[in-house]
């Protein structure tokens, strides 16, 4: 930690470097692949070469007989499915009977070294009787398509039909009704750390320890117990340093379960490191999405009704699919006041790697379509894009049409901030040729108010241990994956107790040591774990104040702790260390627990699927994007981004800025250049060169503005800061391209080929119009 020279030790609202930052910049941080695995066997996975088919021969006898091979496993070794929702666990760690996508794990080997393991894979005989394979939602839904899963007619995993308010009346009352179709390509998290797991099974004690890249160790713990048929108490899941997640690692992943199965079969330790290609194939990212959106608007820009249809190409297994398709509809709400909304969603099974949760889960493609169409209608009505958004703001506290709670709402200020900072009013309409400005808004939940594994337990629990050294160890199951959540926990505790951050240590995500936590997903940690940490710190503070009061012969209510000194008014004082020593005399080392629970009224509506989208606090963002478009090459350059985010309160402004920039930039990747492509089910994007994420050369300055609406339920007033700004970038970019060259793009990403096609089409239409005019 950098020592602050100032008098106050308070950390809140100061930029605080990450408490584990020194490890990261020195190379000392140990990620899964850095753990000592010298004595471990090497695991490798045999993957299906076919997209869809029945396994007719799977003979591993030659592989098993190879010198140096210790274990070979197949689907026969695990008859239990795994997955996310209890109702939709339809995936085996290794395929049983049928394969449903190219690259699906079929068998696995543990051997003394990588060369032997790879040679063993080559000795496995696999014959597949191929079935028709479907690579688009349309093909999979065709009437004559065979079913990927027998219990899902039409290959639809889940269809959603929601209606809130009088939609037809709303359209009838509108002055302008427009309907458009949008298409957003499938993308991938592409976190820089490839997947890896280190599993150790001790045959003498029957215990299993797995160190792995999981964002939610507790889910993996449950799935390991299920798939290995083990008692949960015999398992331990530990999170080392993690090289990014973005949703890729919120599910228990097949290779993690396979590594554990191999370790048990080999009665030892197995290290599995996936290649970048395999990491891409493991996937679980944002699906290819087709959207049809209809919107009604009054002359003044008031939205009157909205009708949305979303089709997601989900891949071969359920994963998070049901949640994603529900989010795509529910998060249409919660940002603007729309009186009537109809939503129809279809999650489709296809013969491709399964999609899952990715930053902005479910909301991004819907938001893209919505913010693009709003802009186009504003243009048609002669209204300013900012004015249209302002005409439809919510007023907190309120509940949305689909029964989501809105407790704080800083969107109006976000709009003001980016409008001013970008000098929108002075510049819009006066840009040089080929230059343009575009804007959009977005929002996201601060944690799902109803967790996926709903048990009725508190949403978060944090333990604090105060001991002889005067140090406090915070134990949390929340996984720090680079977003700085452990630093947030330390600040929340130090701030509540008014002690130095140097007294805090945070141990995160080890299921043997830390209390159960739902983990790093849906941007829940600051809100939920932050509240639990503060609750724990308050309990600890009450204990210390009681001790100080006894020593100072005062009433507890008269004692306060300021800058590590307990005092009664200005007279008697006791330093923190003395109070700790006195408190320990009676109790020994002190352990306290804090918890946080979202009340039932926060957990969404009573309609089917109504819990998805529910949260105690939405973050809000507005952004302006400035672009240059070269009409000769159709290349788009993003010159600058201004983004404002209402994160309630910035507990650590440095981390909030970092999250805002990172999320806007990830939105830029999706908008400009990122896209997964398959050729007959074979990934054609599965390297860092083929999957084109922006480099330093493509990345603009991103100016951040933090808006603080002080959420009434957030820890110290805070809400999430990591996802809310992402979804605004793609529409702001497409709106800026429209402003620059007058082309309305309906497909993402906005690659030069797509823009060129649109430019050629425009020229063709113009030529046609001239010809027709001349002829008439």
């Amino acid at each position, binding site marked *: 930690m950098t020592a602050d020279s100032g008098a106050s030790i308070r950390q809140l609202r100061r930029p605080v470097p990450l408490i584990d930052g020194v490890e990261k*910049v020195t190379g000392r941080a140990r990620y899964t692949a850095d753990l000592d695995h010298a004595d471990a066997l090497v695991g490798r996975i045999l993957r299906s070469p076919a997209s869809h088919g029945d396994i007719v021969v799977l003979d591993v006898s030659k592989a098993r007989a190879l010198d140096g091979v210790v274990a070979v496993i197949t689907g026969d070794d695990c008859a239990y499915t795994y997955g996310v929702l209890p109702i939709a666990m339809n995936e085996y760690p290794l395929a049983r009977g049928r394969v449903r996508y190219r690259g699906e794990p079929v068998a696995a080997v543990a051997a003394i070294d990588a060369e032997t393991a790879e040679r063993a894979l080559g000795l496995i005989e696999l014959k597949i009787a191929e079935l028709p394979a479907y690579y688009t939602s349309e093909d999979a839904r065709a009437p004559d398509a065979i079913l990927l899963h027998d219990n899902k007619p039409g290959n639809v995993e889940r269809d959603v039909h929601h209606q809130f308010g009088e939609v037809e009346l709303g359209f009838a009352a509108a002055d302008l009704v427009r309907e458009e179709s949008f298409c957003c390509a499938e993308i991938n998290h592409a976190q820089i750390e490839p997947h890896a797991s280190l599993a150790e099974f001790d045959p003498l004690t029957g215990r299993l320890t797995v160190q792995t890249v999981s964002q939610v160790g507790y889910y993996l713990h449950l799935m390991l117990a299920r798939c290995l048929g083990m008692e949960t108490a015999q398992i331990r899941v530990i999170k080392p340093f993690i090289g*990014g997640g973005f949703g890729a690692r919120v599910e228990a992943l097949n290779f993690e379960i396979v590594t554990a199965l191999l370790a048990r079969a080999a009665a030892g330790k197995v290290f599995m490191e996936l290649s970048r290609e395999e990491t891409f194939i493991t996937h679980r990212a944002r699906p290819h999405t087709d959207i049809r959106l209809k919107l009604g608007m009054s002359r003044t820009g008031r939205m009157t009704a909205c009708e949305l249809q979303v089709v997601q190409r989900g891949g071969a297994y359920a994963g998070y699919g049901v949640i994603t398709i529900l989010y795509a509809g529910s998060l249409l709400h919660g940002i603007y006041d729309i009186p009537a909304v109809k939503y129809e969603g279809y999650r489709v099974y296809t013969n491709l790697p399964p999609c899952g949760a990715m930053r902005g889960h479910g909301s991004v493609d819907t938001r893209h379509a919505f913010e693009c169409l709003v802009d186009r209608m504003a243009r048609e009505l002669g209204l300013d894009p900012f004015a249209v958004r302002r005409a439809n703001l919510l007023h907190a506290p309120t509940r949305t049409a689909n029964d989501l709670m809105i407790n704080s709402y800083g969107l109006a200020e976000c709009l003001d901030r980016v409008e001013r900072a970008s000098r929108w009013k002075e510049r819009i309409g006066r840009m040089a040729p080929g230059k343009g400005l575009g804007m959009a808004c977005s929002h996201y939940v601060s944690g799902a108010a109803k967790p996926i594994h709903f048990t009725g337990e508190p949403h978060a629990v944090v333990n604090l241990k105060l001991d002889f050294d005067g140090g406090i160890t915070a134990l949390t199951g929340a996984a720090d994956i680079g977003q700085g959540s452990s630093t947030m926990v330390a600040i929340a505790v130090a701030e509540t107790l008014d002690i130095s951050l140097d007294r805090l240590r945070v141990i995160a995500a080890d299921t043997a040591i830390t209390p159960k936590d739902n983990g790093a997903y849906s941007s829940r940690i600051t809100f939920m774990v932050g509240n639990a940490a503060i609750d724990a710190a308050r309990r600890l503070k009450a204990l210390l104040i009681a001790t100080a009061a006894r020593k100072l012969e005062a009433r507890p209510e008269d004692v306060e702790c300021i800058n590590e000194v307990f005092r009664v008014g200005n007279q008697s004082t006791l330093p923190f260390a003395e109070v700790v020593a006195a408190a320990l005399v009676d109790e020994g080392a002190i352990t306290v627990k804090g918890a946080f629970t979202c009340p039932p009224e926060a957990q969404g509506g009573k309609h089917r699927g109504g819990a998805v989208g529910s949260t105690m606090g939405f973050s809000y963002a507005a952004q302006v994007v400035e672009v240059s478009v070269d009409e000769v090459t159709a290349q788009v350059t993003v010159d600058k981004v201004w983004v404002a985010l209402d994160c309630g309160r910035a507990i650590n402004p440095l981390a909030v800025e970092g999250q805002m920039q990172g999320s806007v930039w990830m939105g830029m990747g999706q908008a400009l250049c990122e896209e997964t492509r398959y050729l007959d089910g074979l990934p054609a994007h599965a390297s860092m060169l083929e999957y084109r994420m922006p480099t330093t050369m493509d990345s603009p300055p991103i100016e951040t503005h933090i808006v603080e609406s002080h959420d009434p339920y957030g820890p110290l007033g805070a809400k999430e800061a990591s996802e809310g700004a992402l979804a605004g970038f793609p529409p702001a970019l497409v709106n800026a391209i429209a402003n620059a060259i007058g082309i309305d793009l309906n497909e993402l990403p906005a690659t030069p080929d797509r823009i060129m096609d649109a430019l050629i089409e425009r020229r063709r239409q113009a030529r046609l119009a001239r010809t027709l005019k001349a002829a008439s």
Partner: protein
Amino acid sequence: MHAPGPEAKKRLLRLRVNGRWREDAVSETALLVDYLREVAHLTGTKTGCDGGECGACTVLVDGEAVPSCITLAVRCEGRSVETIEALATQGRLGRLQRAFHEKLGAQCGFCTPGMIMAAEALLRHNPQPTDDEIRAALSGNLCRCTGYVKIIESVKAATETVHDR
């Protein structure tokens, strides 16, 4: 049944790693990144891709930034290799390390060692680079967390510290 294939031919490699000469028996096909991580136990250098695409494995060979995942270890015979572990000396963080820490140039930290080594090579050649020169020097190093904004700020901040390395 099948015996393991013939051992890859090994030879004695002599090179300087982080200022100290070492001699190790190394396979002729071994990559520098695997030598550093598995033989020298310097796991600060990362592998993020299947070869030469992400920059996470960047180290310095005779002061030049090199992707160690597409460099044969035996190519470094007699040469000087520097990794992230070399930059903190005498109990102090290097200037880039301190700047990346304080300015949040590292979030998940996985690209950070490679990013810092690429920046280190730049600053040794060009102590006062412009923003464009920083962007160009780091263009082969991918980061998925930061949007590069705070990385570029970190490198700039490091150029302002002139006293230590």
